[in-house]
């Protein structure tokens, strides 16, 4: 088994579901994880929430939610889904808190993908 996948599983990522979604193409799934890494690197709760550009933040959170959901990166998917709901309910502080809380997990997942890039 691929070491990247093993490590991601340890961090709560449902690798099997993600690979199944791309019709069993593990190579493609791996490639998409690298793309997700770029997407995650382009968003930082501290930086983006400070910019006060709410539509931009919603757009980024929405995209990450969609990608993490499709790649079955469950811990991040659930956090970004919650954050998006709060942003749409006009509660940016609570949304930021949710994303800051998940940051350690996000960093672990990102480090894991980065290691095998």
């Amino acid at each position: 088994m691929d070491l990247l996948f093993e490590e991601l599983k340890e961090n709560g990522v449902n690798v099997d579901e993600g690979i199944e979604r791309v019709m069993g193409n593990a190579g493609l799934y791996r490639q998409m994880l690298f793309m997700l890494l770029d997407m995650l690197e382009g968003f930082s709760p501290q930086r983006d929430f400070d910019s006060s550009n709410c539509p931009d933040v919603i757009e980024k959170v929405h995209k990450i939610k969609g990608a993490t959901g499709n790649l079955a990166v469950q811990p991040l998917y659930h956090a970004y889904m919650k954050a998006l709901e709060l942003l749409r309910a006009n509660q940016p502080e609570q949304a930021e808190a949710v994303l800051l809380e998940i940051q350690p997990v996000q960093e672990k997942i990102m480090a894991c993908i980065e290691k095998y890039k």
Partner: protein
Amino acid sequence: MYTDKTVLVVDDSEIDRMILEAMLCDEFEVIQKNDGYSAVEFLTEGTKKVDALLLDVSMPGMDGFEVLQSMKESEIDDIPVFLITSEATRDNVEKATQYGVSGFIRKPFEGEDIIRRLKLHLGVIGEYKLTKKDITETRRYIKELGMLLRRHFINFREDEGHYSRIVGLMKILLEKYAELNDIRELDKERIEIISKAGYFCDIGFMVVPSRTVKIFKIKEANEDGFQYHTTLGAELVALNHSESCRYFVEVCTEICMHHHERYDGKGFPHRIIGSHNQIYTQICRLADRFDTYFMKYQEHNDRQFEYVVNDIEKDKGFVGMEVLCLLSVCKTDITWFYQTME
């Protein structure tokens, strides 16, 4: 099975586009566009025939609804459109209704469901030949599922006869529809299978908690608990993955899911508009309502038949005209059917 159909995927997320392509490429030719502008340009150029469009709602620049507006202005109205969205919100559904959208594709994507819905809308399902083994296996499955559902009817004192009559009515209406429209692929076996699928239209109630059913049956039909029986029914039927039963499962899933849709797009759960809802599903809807009204009368002769048909015809936008007119065309067969049932 490669289908020779082309699907255009419009989404600004490269990951989502790649996943959809991976899911669909064995069955369809997939073309990707990463924004609304290039999609509209591609569609209006018309250099390549597009059979279906998977369109992301939320995109920077031109969003999904602006693409639909552009298509409307360019009179591109013959392509089934599925909107890609994480949430089918009330606002999205209402806007989608205005543009005659065929349905929503939720994230995370479910490959099998997307392929099944595309095939249904593109008329791919039904093209393959049913073998003797398929028919035997399907009959056996229908019998087993029917026994299960009958037990439920008995336990909850539901009117089993209503669903049996739907089967009989659907058979009459489908035969006439095939004859009038010269649809040869709608042969005897398929008509039998589709008619029998009508029996299971409300099977979703088996898995809706009985208390919820009682509460919602007396409330407005658009309450979530009542609507839920459509999707639950479809999910339940789709649990059968046997290749031999594929045709029945696909038809029955569609009927369970969409037998409460209306031609004017005001039904549920997806507010499918017009002929985007399958003819056989509309026929099931018509049979369901006709029997409910007709059985209110003690006698079932020509006069009661006319009352009921007039009543149904007053509800403009219920089913398509080509389906609605089948009742009058089949008047003799239908009244005879009820008399023999008695």
